[in-house]
């Protein structure tokens, strides 16, 4: 897959006026069916050359007073005219939809999954040709053969910053059938991508705050706490719990998934934090790394860094919450002074 980079120069060229006009004309939707409003069509360079060729044949025919040359040039002009409609009609057969983007880390390559939904129809009314896909603000794109390839497109996203990004429009272009016209559209799939910070190794403070008994009072805590100590009871398996806790013998016997829960004598709840002196982004990356580590070990953890306060817990959802908090962290509360540190 080609790596798509955001070209700041091109971004500047995209005037906001054009984008607002597009927003009015082609509003954001999760699924788009192309129609007159959303399709733009113009001849390609080859198309212009074709027209020039027909014109020169016409001139040749007039000068030689040769009627069949004239007839041929009229034929070429009609072919050009009809190709316009063929190309437009082909593009209008496309139904494009995009699935919500799953969050990813900054150093990973995220993808947008776009589904081209014309392959359900019988072959005769399916869209054909090569569909060129790219983000509106980039130059390099990805070509997809509508006839032979699967109906799912993966369009890579690379962003430079963590956080919640509203994804820009996707440009689809097709030149079927004769390459005389290029037919394109800019579609907004109403997608937002959440980019977690990249994980970086480093030292983080894992502050353990001991909890005196009273765990019994907090029933919810008990269910989610899974320490390493004595085996306490069997509990129903819940999604996201690590698989090494599953009692496989029971599974084989009864088909029901159960996990072992252990009693945690000393409930130590770990809080992750980092000194404020370290650069924010670096700190966030280190915290991300530790979140991932703690999660893989199955230990409960929380975060206590600047304005992020997350109560200790475990599980997939908790991990997502933590990472989201880290991703969305913005430094605005802090007074911007270099001297204060």
């Amino acid at each position, binding site marked *: 897959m080609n790596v798509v980079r955001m070209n700041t120069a091109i971004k500047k060229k995209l005037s906001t006026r054009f984008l607002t006009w597009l927003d009015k004309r082609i509003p954001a939707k999760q699924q788009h069916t192309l129609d007159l409003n959303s399709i733009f069509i113009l001849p390609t360079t080859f198309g212009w050359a074709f027209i020039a060729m027909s014109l020169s044949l016409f001139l040749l025919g*007039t000068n030689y007073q*040769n009627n069949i040359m004239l007839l041929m040039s*009229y034929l070429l*002009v009609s072919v050009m005219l*009809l190709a316009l409609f063929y190309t437009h009609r082909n593009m209008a057969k496309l139904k494009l939809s995009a699935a919500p983007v799953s969050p990813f880390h900054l150093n990973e390559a995220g993808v947008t999954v776009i589904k081209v939904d014309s392959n359900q129809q019988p072959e005769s009314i399916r869209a*054909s040709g090569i569909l060129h896909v790219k983000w509106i603000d980039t130059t390099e794109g990805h070509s997809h053969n509508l006839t*032979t390839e699967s109906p799912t497109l993966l369009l890579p996203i690379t962003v430079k910053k963590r956080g919640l990004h509203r994804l820009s429009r996707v440009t689809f272009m097709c030149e079927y059938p004769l390459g005389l016209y290029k037919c394109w559209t800019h579609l907004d799939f109403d997608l937002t991508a959440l980019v977690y910070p990249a994980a970086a190794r480093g030292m983080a403070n894992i502050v353990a705050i001991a909890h005196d008994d009273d765990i019994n009072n907090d029933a919810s805590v008990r269910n989610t706490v899974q320490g390493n100590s004595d085996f306490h009871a069997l509990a129903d398996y819940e999604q996201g719990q690590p698989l090494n806790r599953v009692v496989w013998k029971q599974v084989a016997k009864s088909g029901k998934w159960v996990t072992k829960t252990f009693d945690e004598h000393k409930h130590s709840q770990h809080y992750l934090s980092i000194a404020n002196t370290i650069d924010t982004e670096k700190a966030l990356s280190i915290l991300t790394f530790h979140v991932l580590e703690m999660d893989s070990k199955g230990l409960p953890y929380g975060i206590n860094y600047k304005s992020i306060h997350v109560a200790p817990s475990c599980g997939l959802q908790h991990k997502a919450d933590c990472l989201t908090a880290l991703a969305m962290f913005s430094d605005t509360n802090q007074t911007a002074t270099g001297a204060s540190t």
Partner: protein
Amino acid sequence: MNTLFSGFKRSRSLQTANSDLPYLLISLSFGVLILSLFEALLSWVLVLSGCAVFIRVAAFAKHGSQASMRTINLLAVLSLFALAWFGLSIGLLNSMINLLAIACSLKLMLIQNRRDFHLLFCTSLFLIGCGFIFALSIYAWVGYTCILSILLVSLALYHSPGKRFLDTSALVATLLAKAFPIAILLFLVMPQLPPLWQMPTAKSQQTGLAESVTPGDIASLAQSSSLAFTATFDNTIPPMSALYWRAMTLESFDGKTWAVSDKRRQAEQQLKGMNRPSPLSASSSYNDTNAKAYQLIIEPTQQRWVFGLEVSAPNNATSSANVSVQFDYALRARRPVMGKKAFYLSYYPNALLTSPLEGFERQLNLNYPTDSNLKTQAWVDTLTQEANSPQAVAHSIMRYFQEQGFTYTLEPNAMPSSPIDTFLFTERAGFCAHYASAMAFALRVAGVPARMVSGYQGGETLSQGVLQIRQYNAHAWVEALIDGDWVRYDPTSMVAPSRLSIGLEHALAEFGEQRNKSVFSSLTRGQWFLNVQSWFRQLDYSWSKWVLGFDKKNQNDLLHKLLGEITSTRLTIILLSTIAIIALLLVLYFVPLRAPSNETKFNRLFLHALKSLERYTQHPRGTTAARHYVTEISNTLTKEIRHSAFAAITVYEGYHYMSPCADEKKKALALKEMKNLVKQLNTAIVKASKDTKNGAHHRHP
């Protein structure tokens, strides 16, 4: 917006199994194009193109690599040098075509990206255009349209890799079929413009006639059967003996060659400038009522000759703009005939060719080189002593031809020195130019102004009122100025009268010669072949008349017929209605008709069957499911009805629970099955109702 796309880098074209097919097709079509142009191309250019096609085909067969850039550059430089060397001798048009062919071949050898392919396509289109300069028949049109369709198929294949070949060709075929009506409409309506500038002409054209005749020249024409022109008369064709088509008058003789006199050219120009009226109107025997209108369609000659029947003049005002009568009664077009052109003339059968400038013409036509052909001069002196009038002199010359055993042949011996002496006294065998030359010279010596006229004689009847005149009908005869009028004398009539009355082929047959000595001559005489040939000639004639001869006048006539007078408002109406018709055609092509899909047909059938069941059993279905319903009423049904009903239900359920991506074939099969089952069900119901009726009847005797 376009700037965004100018940098759009397309990934390398997706290589699939048949990705080489477009290249193969384009090279094949290029090969055929080159073959069709072979008369215009130099031999080494043909070889180069052949190599290019071969390389491309080999690359396709073996998936091998292409030629390198350096080889191509080297070849390019060499070819340009060679073309520059030869270019001057073959003329501008041919060198341009050769240059185009070379560029195309070199590009074919090395196609690296989209741009190259598109370039190749465009140059092939232009080559097709050039092909039409040389070939104008309907076969050429059909052939080139096939080449165009192959080119379009290769382009379509290039832009949609992976699609089946049949699908792509079907697409291109429908595209072309839909484009044709629009093209024809445009052709009928778009105004025919006059040539905007002078185009380079092909040097090696077979013009047939030339402005100078040395006996021995015209023998080469008799071999050619290419069409010179076609004449269409309203009803009857004039008799063969009257079919003299005048091309030009040759009044200057140097002892060997007759040529158009420069003095004549100057005089014509001066007289034109002075706006003197046409000689026909001045002629005393100009009689309007006997005039016969006819139409000429002349093949391209690059000359301004119009072969009018003696004596002809333009038919009406528009014709007069295109064609004028010279003072020697020959017709000239205003512009050279570059493409097939139609002329509308009137023929005055009884008109005399009165000399409009008697003094000048006498002087011009009495000149002869006194030191040439002395024997003839002596002989003429003896003739004049006996004769007492110019007519008598002419007659005695003609009698000489008749009595002295002259023969008509297309292959006389060469007569390099004193040709007329040799012809009259030694050889005594030749063709029309020999006879005409000898007679004209003799008359001049006798003091009778005489000139040679060249043109065509006779013609072949194609159909009612239509004559076709071919290059082998070229003829030369004599005119003598007697009592102020030019009188025609045709010495060939003394020797080979059949040549004039029946035609060249028969005349030669009398002398045991054949016009065309080829292997196929026995074949070509067969009756069926002549029938087929005649049919093709008819087709070609209709093509010429309706398509190629469709010029401004025809277009105006057509519009006139459709709309009456042509005013500017009516023209705008025509323009708007053309656009409307094209728009209508586009709507027809592209707005899909709502044909009932198979699915709705299927459902309708099934529901109809259920309804007939309801009617039969008088038990309404309501909202019950089909299977449930039939099970409910199964007691009241006969075995056959029950059987077909359940079978139909099974098919119905199977159809609707099929995967949505199921084969079209399966769906079609299901539909057919349902049709059969419904039919079965209906017959069973009908039978059952009849039985119950009969049963009821039987119960009540």
